[in-house]
């Protein structure tokens, strides 16, 4: 049951993220980007942990049972750092653009079109 819920929520987050990223409003697009990244981080969580496995390093493992994959957590931490960097950079750009163009509507930010 929980796996189904997990899969559904990853899928929904992915959908919401893509939808938001394609919005005309750049702030919403930036937030959509953050949502997409969390969808992928959750996907990584799903890759590493299975039912009946113990948390790595913190629990005593019964004989014949496995711990879940600790590498995944390191990967997610790195991915969070990377996504945080990109997200703040995007927000910074949107901030400067909103002051320079007086709008965050991507349809009006079209000075490159000659």
């Amino acid at each position: 049951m929980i796996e189904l819920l997990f899969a559904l929520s990853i899928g929904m987050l992915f959908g919401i993220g893509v939808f938001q990223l394609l919005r005309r409003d750049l702030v919403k697009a930036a937030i959509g980007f953050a949502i997409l990244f969390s969808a992928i981080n959750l996907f990584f969580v799903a890759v590493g942990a299975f039912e009946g496995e113990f948390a790595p390093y913190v629990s005593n493992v019964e004989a014949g049972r496995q711990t879940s994959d600790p590498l995944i957590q390191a990967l997610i931490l790195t991915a969070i750092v990377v996504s945080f960097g990109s997200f703040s950079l995007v927000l910074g750009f949107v901030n400067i653009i909103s002051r320079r163009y007086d709008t965050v509507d991507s349809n009006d930010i079209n000075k490159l079109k000659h």
Partner: protein
Amino acid sequence: MEQNYFLLGALVTPLIGAILALVFASSNRLQRSIAVLAGLIAWVFCIALLTQVHDSGVQTYALGNWKPPYGIVLVADALGGLFAFMVTTIMIGGLLYTFHCRDKCMTYPAFVPLFLLMEVGLIGAMLTGDLFTLFVFMELMVLASVSLTAISDDQYGLEAALKYILISSMGTLFLLLGIGALYATFGTLNMAEIARSLLTGVRPFLAPAAAIMLLCAFLLKSAVFPFHFWQPDFHTTAPTPVSAMLSSIVVKVGVYGIIRLVTLLFIEEAPFLERWLSTLGIIGILFGSLGALRTYNAKRMLAYSTFAQIGFILVGIGWGTPLAMIGAIIYAFNHAFIKSSLLLLMGVVASFTTTKSANFADISGLGGKLPPVLGWLVLIGGLSLAGIPPLNGFISKLTLIQGGVDRADWANLIIMVAAGILTVMYMVRAWQRIFQQNPLPATVDTKDQGDSLFAPLLLIVVCLLLGTVLAEPMIQLISETVRQLGDAQIYISAVNLPPPA
């Protein structure tokens, strides 16, 4: 497994350089000297690596002495070593250009550290043997180059940077998703280990999907047809040395990834992927050449031309034969040198106008004010890009076309030769407009002093030296590279994994 510290050195030197440049942020000159020094040391490391790879096979370095497939491993095989050598050489040209560049953005304390971080990302992406590390380095490179474009003197730089970072992040997400899919199926991120599992013929459900996602991410980084629309804006608005690096070596990261995909990871799926590469490459050649022909800005023309030249490389990879692969790699190598020097030269031309624009309307007829050698360099670079016989572009085009004749793919060959003629047309026309025309009455004010010619001159000399005088050993080196690429087992066993059962 022996630890080769040169690998670590090539990667860490620019990183230390970036940190030192941040520490000495008060003095621009010192920052630039540190950057050039770091670039030179990394270059020496890469040359040492290349000779070692050539003499004694694939070199590896396990970070923190964690043995593969558990730890992160740096690998320099013939392809990675060659590309890293190309990156560091061209990067020195870009770093030297910053010394005598009058752009305002070069004086920002963040410029040099970001430039060096871009180099770290590039070298790291080419020397890593771990998929997740590849993602991290590619993201580092993207973030650094985006920030550099956003602080450009060109007022539209920010807009182009925002456009690119949104598109590129989307691509990075799919790269990450593909990596996650591979990890879910194979439980490792080590490229050699994944390749070993795939060689046994196991095809889990997620593996082909991962192949497509990785391919799309790499195509996006190389600005190939359906993902190309950001490229002309982004490459045009970047500061001159940055745009030269973007259009020459940053797009090659995607090419490098694609070569890895079809020769190491997904060998069985390669024919399917290669069919796509050929088609997309041909579309790129057509639209890039035509776009370059009718554009209004010299830098933008070169950006469109990159779009076309990447198409040539992809068609070469798409043919899939060793001969065509040799052609593609030589092409990638020569294109990086020619395109970077041409973009730096156009930057020098543009720096003589007060607006620093490379619009043909502004720089037409500027030739009288420029040093005469500049005209000759632009002409040589343009003809070399088009592949006119004594120059190095000819050798790369010839080997590529030989590969096509070998495959008897006549329809694509006709388009490629036609695109070569288009290249002559737009390059010679640009040269005529700048250096042969009388100044237009509406031409903007010019300055007596522009950027220094030294860096592009150096790059073009190195390019001609490597591409013509040393063409024979270069082709031998690249044939050796392709021979090594033909046998994925060489890479796998070098990372100290037993062959597949």
